[in-house]
C-alpha cells in the first residue's frame, strides 16, 4: 500500500521507512529536512506539513495510510515554534487525510503524555489523563497534539485513527530523549531519587508502528518493550558515571557547568517514574519485543560509546 510518512528524515522516521519497504509498501516521505541517501522505493518531498506544498502531496499521491511522526519532541526548540509545528502539523495531517480519502492514520506519541509526579501510579493505562501539564508546561504541545489526534476518532469516523504512546527508545540511532540524556560522560540525577525508566529498542518501535499499520489498529495504545529498570541501573550499564545532585543545586546548575539546558519541569522526570501498561497493544496485535535490556544498551553503546 501507499504509505505517507511525515517526519521521515528523522532517525526514527528513516528506520520506519526501511521497515515499510521491507514489508513491501511504497513509501512517500514528507520532511522539512532532506534525506539525500533515501533508498529506492521512497519518494521524498521536501515540505513543511503545515504548508500548501504538503497538501499537494496528499492531493496527488492519494496515500492509503499516513504515519505522522513530524512532531518535535526535543526541548531545545523554542516552545512557541514547537506548539505551532506539533499542533498545527497534526491538525493539517488529519484534515488532509479526511479530505483526500486516506483510510488510516497513525499518530506516534510519547508516554510522557501521562506526566511524572509523586501521586501518579506506575503502569498507566490508556484511560489515564495527562497529569502534570501544570508542572511541565513545555510538554503541553505534545499532550494537546495527542488529544487532538484522538479526537479524530469521533470527528472523522471513516478514518481508522490510531494513537501509539511509546516509552523511551534507545539503541543504534543514538537519538531521542533518553539517548541525549545518556550521551554525556556524567549524566546528572537528583539526589535521593531513582525512578524506574522504561525503554525499548529503536527497531522494536519501528516494528510496532508497521505492525499497527498492517493490523489497521484503531484507538489509543501504549507501547513498551521490556520491564522498566531504575535510572541508576541504566546509567551504570551504559558505562556512564552517575552524578547525584541535590535538587536545589540541580535547579541552579541547569544550563550551566556543562549541565544540559532543561526546563524546570524536566526534573520531575528524573524524580518520578512514568511507566506504561502495554497489555492492550500486545493482546490486540500479538506484538513481542525482540530486544532485551542488554541488547538495547549494547547497541546504544556501539553507536554512542562513553566519551573518554
Amino acid at each position, binding site marked *: 500500500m501507499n504509505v505517507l510518512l511525515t517526519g521521515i528524515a528523522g532517525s526514527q522516521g528513516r528506520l520506519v521507512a526501511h521497515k515499510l519497504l521491507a514489508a513491501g509498501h511504497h513509501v512517500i516521505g514528507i520532511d522539512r529536512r532532506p534525506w539525500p541517501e533515501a533508498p529506492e522505493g521512497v519518494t521524498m518531498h521536501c515540505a513543511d506539513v503545515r504548508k500548501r506544498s504538503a497538501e499537494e502531496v496528499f492531493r496527488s499521491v492519494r496515500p492509503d495510510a499516513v504515519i505522522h511522526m513530524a512532531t518535535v519532541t526535543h526541548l531545545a526548540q523554542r516552545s512557541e515554534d514547537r506548539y505551532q509545528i506539533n499542533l498545527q502539523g497534526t491538525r493539517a495531517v488529519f484534515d488532509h487525510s479526511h479530505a483526500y480519502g486516506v483510510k488510516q492514520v497513525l499518530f506516534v506519541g510519547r508516554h510522557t503524555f501521562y506526566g511524572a509526579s509523586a501521586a501518579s*501510579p*506506575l*503502569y498507566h493505562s490508556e484511560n489515564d489523563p495527562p497529569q502534570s501539564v501544570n508542572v511541565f508546561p513545555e510538554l503541553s504541545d505534545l499532550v494537546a497534539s495527542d488529544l487532538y489526534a484522538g479526537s479524530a476518532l469521533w470527528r472523522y469516523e471513516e478514518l481508522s485513527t490510531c494513537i501509539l504512546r511509546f516509552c523511551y527508545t534507545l539503541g543504534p540511532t543514538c537519538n531521542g530523549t533518553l539517548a541525549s540524556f545518556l550521551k554525556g560522560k556524567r549524566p546528572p540525577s537528583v539526589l*535521593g531519587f*531513582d525512578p*524506574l525508566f522504561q525503554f525499548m529498542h529503536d527497531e522494536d518501535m519501528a516494528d510496532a508502528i508497521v505492525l499497527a499499520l498492517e493490523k489497521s489498529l484503531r484507538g489509543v495504545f501504549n507501547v513498551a518493550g521490556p520491564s522498566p529498570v*531504575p535510572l541508576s*541501573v541504566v546509567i551504570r550499564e551504559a558505562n556512564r558515571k552517575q552524578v547525584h545532585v541535590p535538587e536545589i543545586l540541580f535547579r541552579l546548575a541547569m544550563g550551566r557547568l556543562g549541565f544540559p539546558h532543561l526546563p524546570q519541569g524536566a526534573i520531575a522526570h528524573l524524580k518520578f517514574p512514568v511507566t506504561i501498561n502495554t497489555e492492550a497493544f500486545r493482546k490486540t496485535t500479538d506484538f513481542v519485543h525482540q530486544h532485551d535490556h542488554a541488547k538495547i544498551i549494547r547497541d546504544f553503546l556501539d553507536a554512542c560509546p562513553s566519551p573518554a
Partner: protein
Amino acid sequence: MAWLVDDEIMDRIEKLEIDFNRYGVDAYGASKKDMARAGTIMAWIYRRYFDVSVHGIKHVPPRGRGMLVGNHSGGLALDALIVTSSMMLEAEPPRLVNAMADRFIERVPFGAMLLSRLGQLTGLPEHAVRLLNDDRLLMVFPEGHRGTAKLYGDRNSLVRFGTGFVRLALQTKTPIVPFAFIGGGEAIPTIANLEKTGKFLGLPYLPITPYGPPLPRPVALEIYYSEPIVFEGTGNEEDRVIQDCVDKVRDRIAELIERGVRIRTGRGKASQS
C-alpha cells in the same frame, strides 16, 4: 557477598516467588540486594531487639493473591515493618509483603527510592489492584492515619475502618487474612502527637513519648494471623453491604486482639507502666 548482607537472608530473598530481571529488580523496582540489606537489619531488630512471637502464620496463603488486614499499633511504621519481617523470616516459602505507603514519602529525597527498592508502592488504588492481579500479598491497615495516632491508653482498641479494602478484595477476588498486632503501643507509648512539629519535619505528625522522642522500647510483640475470610461479590455492592463485610473483618480483629491481650496479661508481660 554484598556489604551488610546475611547469607541466610539472601537465601530467603532467593526463595521469593517473584520475577526478577537480570539486574535483580522486579517490575515495581524492588531490588534483591537492597531487600537483603534491609532484611539483615530487620532480622536483628526482629530477633534480638524485640521479642516477637507469631501465631497462625499457616493461615497466610503461601502463594497467590492475599490481603493482610490488621490494626495499627504504635506510631511510625513499626507494625508494618514487623509484619513484613514476619512474612520474610518465618513464612515458608517466604513472601514479600507489599504495603501501601503514605503519599508524603514519595516527595522526600531517599524516601521514594528506599520504598521502591524494598518493593513498597504509594497507596494508590491503581497500585493495589495491579499488585493483587499480579498475585502479590498486600498489607492494609484500614484504620489509616487515625490508627497510628492512637494514644497509649487506646493501644488495644480499634478506630473506624475505611471500606475501600473490602471493595478491592471483592473486585479482585482476594482472600482477606485478618491479623492482630499487639505490643506496638507499649514499644512506643505515645502520650501526644505534635502536628505542627511533624509538618515541619515533613511527617503527618510527630508522636511524643514520656521519654521524649518516639524511639521504640525493646518489648514483646505479638502477631496473630486468623484464617482467611473470602467474600463473594463484584465490588459494586451498595455501601450497606460493604459495611457488613468490613464489620465482620473488624470483629475478627477485635477478637484476636482480645485473645492476645488476655494471654499477654496472663503471661505477666503486660505493660509495666
